[in-house]
């Protein structure tokens, strides 16, 4: 039996971890980019990013003032008691973390422009549900920044042109985005399904660690090809020029309608924040993305 107080506490902890400490795979990718950068300006931008990450971690301060819109991915065991109460616990956790960490209040009514000042509102925090066998609860939080979200794109492309149209759309999107999404970025790409399905899958690929190549060898090859092409634009860290424009490209897909070829690109800034934990039925907690003492 997992109490909702435990769920709330773990969610607060995950929000705090996510905004103050990057997962090791993201830190590794940024360090590699810094080592490999050969322009002076690009290197200085990456150095500032690494110094900032270090300071944020040491002082438990949010690494970026934009602590994002809060999205939870929940994998709930079908035998878990109180699934219907999890949403309430996650909302409470968001309100608490906003004060405690603190997070910047980022939930605004799109019609009245009123900010609720606690990061909750209609459909926010957004919760993705997956029901899995068993009695454990896995929580992942993805605080998603606005600058990078603003250059995300959906293309309803022509099926006859297939992968070539996809590649062109990705390159055009990354060049149009330029400095705006705080590069080096991570591109989450998904093809097929439909407009909403592609977008949803594209965002979910941002939860995958950067050091894990795609299990499908063809997609792994495409990811590498697009990563190299994006980096050959020379846009570089912060759009000031340099070798690394994207840290990684992640691809997923769903089967498509014969007449449709939806391609979704979700752009994630260098502050690729995410945190996950598993809560077992005996209330044992296992943090997955971060080391917690």
């Amino acid at each position, binding site marked *: 039996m997992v109490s909702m107080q435990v769920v709330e506490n773990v969610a607060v902890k995950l929000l705090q971890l996510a905004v103050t400490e990057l997962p090791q795979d993201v830190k590794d990718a940024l360090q590699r980019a810094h080592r490999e950068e050969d322009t*002076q*300006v690009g290197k*200085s*931008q990456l150095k*500032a*990013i690494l*110094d*900032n990450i270090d*300071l*944020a971690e040491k*002082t438990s*301060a*949010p*690494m*970026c*003032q*934009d602590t994002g819109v809060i999205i939870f991915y929940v994998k709930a065991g079908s035998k878990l008691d109180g699934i219907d109460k999890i949403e309430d616990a996650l909302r409470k956790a968001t309100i608490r973390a906003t004060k405690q960490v*603190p997070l*910047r209040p980022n939930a605004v009514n799109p019609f009245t422009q009123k900010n609720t000042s606690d990061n909750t509102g209609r459909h926010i925090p957004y919760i993705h549900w997956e029901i899995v066998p068993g009695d454990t609860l896995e929580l992942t939080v993805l605080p998603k*920044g606005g*600058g990078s979200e603003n250059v995300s794109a959906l293309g309803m492309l022509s099926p006859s042109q297939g992968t*070539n149209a996809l*590649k*062109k759309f990705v*390159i*055009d999107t990354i*060049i149009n985005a*330029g*400095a*705006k999404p*705080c590069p080096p970025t991570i591109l989450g790409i998904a093809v097929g399904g439909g407009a909403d399905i592609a977008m949803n899958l594209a965002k979910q690929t941002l939860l995958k660690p950067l050091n894990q190549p795609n299990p499908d060898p063809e997609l792994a090859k495409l990811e590498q*090809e697009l990563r190299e*092409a994006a980096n*050959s*634009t*020379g*846009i*570089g860290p*912060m*759009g*000031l*020029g340099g070798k690394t424009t994207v840290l990684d490209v992640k691809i997923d897909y769903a089967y498509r309608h014969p007449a449709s070829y939806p391609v979704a690109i979700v752009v994630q*800034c*260098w*502050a690729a924040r995410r945190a996950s934990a598993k809560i077992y039925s005996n209330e044992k907690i296992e943090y997955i993305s971060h080391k917690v003492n």
Partner: protein
Amino acid sequence: MTTYPLRTPISEKDVRKLVVNDTIYLTGTIVTARDSAHKKALDLHKNGKQLPLNLEGLAVFHCGPIVKKENHEWNVLAAGPTTSTRMEPFEDDFIKNFKVRVVIGKGGMGKKTVDAMKHYGAVYGAFTGGAAVLAAKAIKQVKGVEWTDLGMPEAMWILDVENFGPLTVAIDTHGNNLFQTIQTKAETKKQKIYKTLGF
């Protein structure tokens, strides 16, 4: 590519020495201003009213900080730059009327600002996007806050900074715009990239 420590107020002569790709570190007084504060300052000026602070020679920082009041004193926790293009409609008049010498932000600005910087003598210093704790660390004291009616992020925060940077000079007084140069280069590479990708 030279590194300059600069102290505000900065003279027009000093700012005209800077060229794109130079790095600057600022010490002294800077103020934050986003869209609303830019508009408010320009409205006051239009109506013949004084600003709460003379901005001549200072730096304006495009930033909505996370601040906390502790023991009756404001403490800046996170203060990364916001996207500067939102201030494009106001920045040329802001530079002209208030003679700020450095505009700090991320992502660069447009032609109107580039022209004003050339004409009146100011540079754009790009601060690393998202590096909010690094920025906060260089803020030694909050000297004051004006226009809190605009909301905390939009208010004008008057900050005492020490070695605030690195700021990459991305627009100089000679009409150079580093962001535009990089962007144009990427555009011209497009066809070659398409070819590499096999179409």
